[in-house]
């Protein structure tokens, strides 16, 4: 049994009632048929929505009962009635999802949900991204892998409402009872075989006023679309080059614009020595000094790059001038909270582990970019934004306009990984557009991204465990991190929901609350405490395909392997006997079986195995790591090769699965991230700036690092709701690779990624801040 008895803020009430699953009571489902020319419906879940239990019983940890996903789902409820589907006369259903598509497949999944309830082909459902809609308050944030969890029921209720209205209209038209009609593939058929298409019915079903109707949803056993493998709805656009990202949009007068950025992190421009000379360069139309640097606007981005390189700027230093990895690590060490191991028998053995995690860039392949057109009385921006409401507010503030005068258009993003939670590019573009008095299409140079863009904070994790007679008596974790910026709206949600949160979150700061809402240890390890402390707000941080979990899980699973070793147990067998989470156990068993845990391997090839539980789901990963010299010493130009994961097997229990093909894609990406985090990808802070400026400096997984063998097992689940998937694949992956590495080398790495100590590239110049584009491309055709 796990209990917390120390005086930490996590101490739980021993006398609390036994755990019960809050928030999943039966509720009446109400939809609205809205007034309009063709059929328009909305879902209303504000009736019957139950707040989650206010007190968290002992002994489970907080996230097992009420996690970050619940918080987001619950805070989205009061406005869910505004989620609406329209049917047009051609029989297409239209839905503007108040979330952002960044590659995670939510538009495809939403179309599947609508097709399921409405009994129509998925191809006839058009899902677009909604503009910033202030009335949605907390219901327009894409993050925490929460989209499917919070939108699953509202979307289905709206679609079921539409189907009901279509059937009633058809009944009138065909002179039949609703019960005698059947709907299939977008066609309603009457008892005599006469049929009407949804397109024909869309106008007939239109209502003159808003009417509330009660609906029931298709039961799970009758699902015909949900749970089937489905390709992405934008796949054709993506492979033909027709998919439009922000930089592909044509906005009248919005010329290419880039920023000459300071040589040190968050420095600022004092003055420009050669402004008129730069203004006279070919193609250049404008130069403007803004607080983040010196902006140039030109006919082409190529001419912007030349102008950025030519600018001669006097810079003021940044807030971390002179700092480096070691100085920040020293600061973290000073901030580490003490362990409070309760009294344990004198003979108990102790395991101590301390692991450091370096800064990592969360940049996507599409760099930060935004289009802005700011006039004296209004502003319009276009950007990939996961929190458009926050961006709208911030843009309004930055250019001095009322929020209502700022229109924010959400564009599909070329990847996010947490990066696009922030409106950095949208705000900067708006400021530049205002300064120049012209529309701008702003793009960050690749070099700007790792150097000035958001990073995952540096962190340390300490674990102390005590063991006696084959049992683990205590397990304590102290996670210490550079402050994570939650200024993208999650903070507001927590504050707004404060009254509804589990009682023992009271008194915790924002970061600690999020840590407590996400971290859980899936093992029966006696007294468990996991605490967070954060220091230093000088960096541009954010979450990166998960907030704390990949680092926390990596440290924990390394510790679990060490505990098993001390107790003379096999890592897999040990986990199976100590895991208290049944889903995690099933996942672990699945990967051990499919991956052949313990099979005989050549000398130098080692297995690693790890689990992770979060967002009410579980993942387990088995990897095989090849550390033989012929592999480690492979030569690839400008690359890090090193040990290679030759096989990765991941099992995921993500609750009810809407689209298994999409889920597998998310797991594949999660494993690629985990491999990079364990072995190759980090940013080096030196003398107040990050050294990385290229994909050949920041070593994200490349083809030569990819496991030739990959398998994803989607676990069957009885859950009624989907869990989170976007981030779920990362934590167990980084942990499994780390464990394999420790077993291969016989030494537990104390710093991640393991190659951070070797600088594998020559840093590019800081003045000018971006490299020149090569001119020898035709010598490298292949």
């Amino acid at each position: 049994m796990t209990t917390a008895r120390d005086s930490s803020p996590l101490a739980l009430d021993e006398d609390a009632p036994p755990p019960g699953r809050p928030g999943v009571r039966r509720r009446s489902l109400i939809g609205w048929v809205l007034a309009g020319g063709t059929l328009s419906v909305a879902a209303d879940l504000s009736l019957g929505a139950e707040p989650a239990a206010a007190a968290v019983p002992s002994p489970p940890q907080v996230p097992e009962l009420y996690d970050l996903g619940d918080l987001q789902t619950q805070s989205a409820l009061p406005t869910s009635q505004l989620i609406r589907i329209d049917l047009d006369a051609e029989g297409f259903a239209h839905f503007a999802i108040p979330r952002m598509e960044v590659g995670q497949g939510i538009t495809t999944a939403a179309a599947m949900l609508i097709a399921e309830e409405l009994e129509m082909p998925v191809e006839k459902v058009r899902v677009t991204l909604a503009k910033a809609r202030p009335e949605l308050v907390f219901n327009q944030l894409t993050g925490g892998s929460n989209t499917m969890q919070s939108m699953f029921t509202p979307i289905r209720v709206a679609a079921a409402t539409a189907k009901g209205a279509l059937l009633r209209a058809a009944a009138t038209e065909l002179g039949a009872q609703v019960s005698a009609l059947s709907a299939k593939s977008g066609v309603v058929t009457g008892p005599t075989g006469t049929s009407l298409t949804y397109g024909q019915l869309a106008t007939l079903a239109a209502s003159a006023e808003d009417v509330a109707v009660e609906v029931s949803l298709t039961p799970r056993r009758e699902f015909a679309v949900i749970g089937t493998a489905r390709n992405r709805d934008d796949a054709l656009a993506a492979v033909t080059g027709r998919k439009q990202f922000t930089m592909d949009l044509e906005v009248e007068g919005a010329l290419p614009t880039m920023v000459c950025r300071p040589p040190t992190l968050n420095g600022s421009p004092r003055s420009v020595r050669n402004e008129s000379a730069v203004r006279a360069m070919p193609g250049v139309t404008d130069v403007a000094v803004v607080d983040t640097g010196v902006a140039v606007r030109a006919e082409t981005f190529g001419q912007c790059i030349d102008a950025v390189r030519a600018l001669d700027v006097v810079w003021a230093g940044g807030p971390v001038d002179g700092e480096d990895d070691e100085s920040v690590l020293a600061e973290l060490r000073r901030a580490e909270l003490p362990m409070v191991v309760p009294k344990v028998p004198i003979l108990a053995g102790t395991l101590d582990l301390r692991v450091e995690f370096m800064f990592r860039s969360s940049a996507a392949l599409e760099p930060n970019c935004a289009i802005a057109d700011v006039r004296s009385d209004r502003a319009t921006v276009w950007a990939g934004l996961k929190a458009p409401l926050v961006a709208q507010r911030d843009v309004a503030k930055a250019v001095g306009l009322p929020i209502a005068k700022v229109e924010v258009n959400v564009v599909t993003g070329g990847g996010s990984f947490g990066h696009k939670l922030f409106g950095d590019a949208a705000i900067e573009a708006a400021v530049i557009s205002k300064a120049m008095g012209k529309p701008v299409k702003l793009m960050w140079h690749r070099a700007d991204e790792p150097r000035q863009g958001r990073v995952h904070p540096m962190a340390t994790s300490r674990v102390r465990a005590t063991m006696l007679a084959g049992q683990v008596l205590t397990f304590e974790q102290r996670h210490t991190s550079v402050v994570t910026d939650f200024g993208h709206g999650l903070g507001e949600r927590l504050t707004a929901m404060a009254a509804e949160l589990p009682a023992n979150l009271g008194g915790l700061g924002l970061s600690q609350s999020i840590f407590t809402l996400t971290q859980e240890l899936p093992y029966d390890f006696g007294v468990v405490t996991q605490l967070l402390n954060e220091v230093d707000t000088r960096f541009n941080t954010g979450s990166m395909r998960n907030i704390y979990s990949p680092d926390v899980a990596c440290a924990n699973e390394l510790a679990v392997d060490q505990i098993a070793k001390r107790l003379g147990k096999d890592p897999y067998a040990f986990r199976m006997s100590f895991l208290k989470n049944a889903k995690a156990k099933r996942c672990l068993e699945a990967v051990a079986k499919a991956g052949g845990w313990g099979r005989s391997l050549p000398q130098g090839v080692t297995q690693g195995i790890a689990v992770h539980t979060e967002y009410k789901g579980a993942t387990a990963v088995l990897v095989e790591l090849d550390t033989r010299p012929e592999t480690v010493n492979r030569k690839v130009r400008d690359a890090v090769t090193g040990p290679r994961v030759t096989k990765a097997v991941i099992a995921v229990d993500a609750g009810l699965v809407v689209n298994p093909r999409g889920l597998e894609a998310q797991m594949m990406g999660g494993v690629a991230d985990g491999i990079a985090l364990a072995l190759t990808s980090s940013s080096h802070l030196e003398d107040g700036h990050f050294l990385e400026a290229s994909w050949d400096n920041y070593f994200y997984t490349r083809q030569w690092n990819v496991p030739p063998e990959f398998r994803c097992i989607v676990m069957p689940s009885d859950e009624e709701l989907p869990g989170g998937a976007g981030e779920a694949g990362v934590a167990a992956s980084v942990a499994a690779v780390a464990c394999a590495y420790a077993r291969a080398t016989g030494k537990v790495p104390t710093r991640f990624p393991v190659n951070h100590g070797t600088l594998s590239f020559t840093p590019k110049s800081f003045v000018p801040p971006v490299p020149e584009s090569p001119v020898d491309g035709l010598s490298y055709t292949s």
Partner: protein
Amino acid sequence: MPQHTFRVNGESVTVDVEDDVRLLWVLRDVLKITGPKYGCGINVCKACTSHVNGKAFNPCSVPVSDLGPEDEVTTIEGLPDTVDADLHPMQEAWLERDVAQCGYCQPGQIMAAVALVKKVRAEGRSITDADLDGIRNICRCGTYTRIREAIRDGAARM
């Protein structure tokens, strides 16, 4: 301003732009051909990969003045026309395996894949793991395994 004439996706084009502007920006900003993506501008990420005279190249690193009237540039938009079809077999393989996630890297990945298959064919062999390991295109969404499978599949269809 100097004029430059070359062929793009089967048509001759003439643009008024300085000699040293890299072709990627001539395609994207001047000709509004936005399939080739920017991911680095220094011939590293390969998101801009297109073909010149049937071979893969990176227009971010080629001054427009390097091209002559006979040079044929093919971007992802023009790929199906090279086989007189609505879709190139490699694009079909990509669809079949649902390779794209965010999709940003995918035009470059597909153009690189087609050139790779042609290259190994010219060498009289088929794609090996080492060939796939040698692809430098970044996919920050990490859909590398599906890319590998789709290339083999696309090669079989080509």
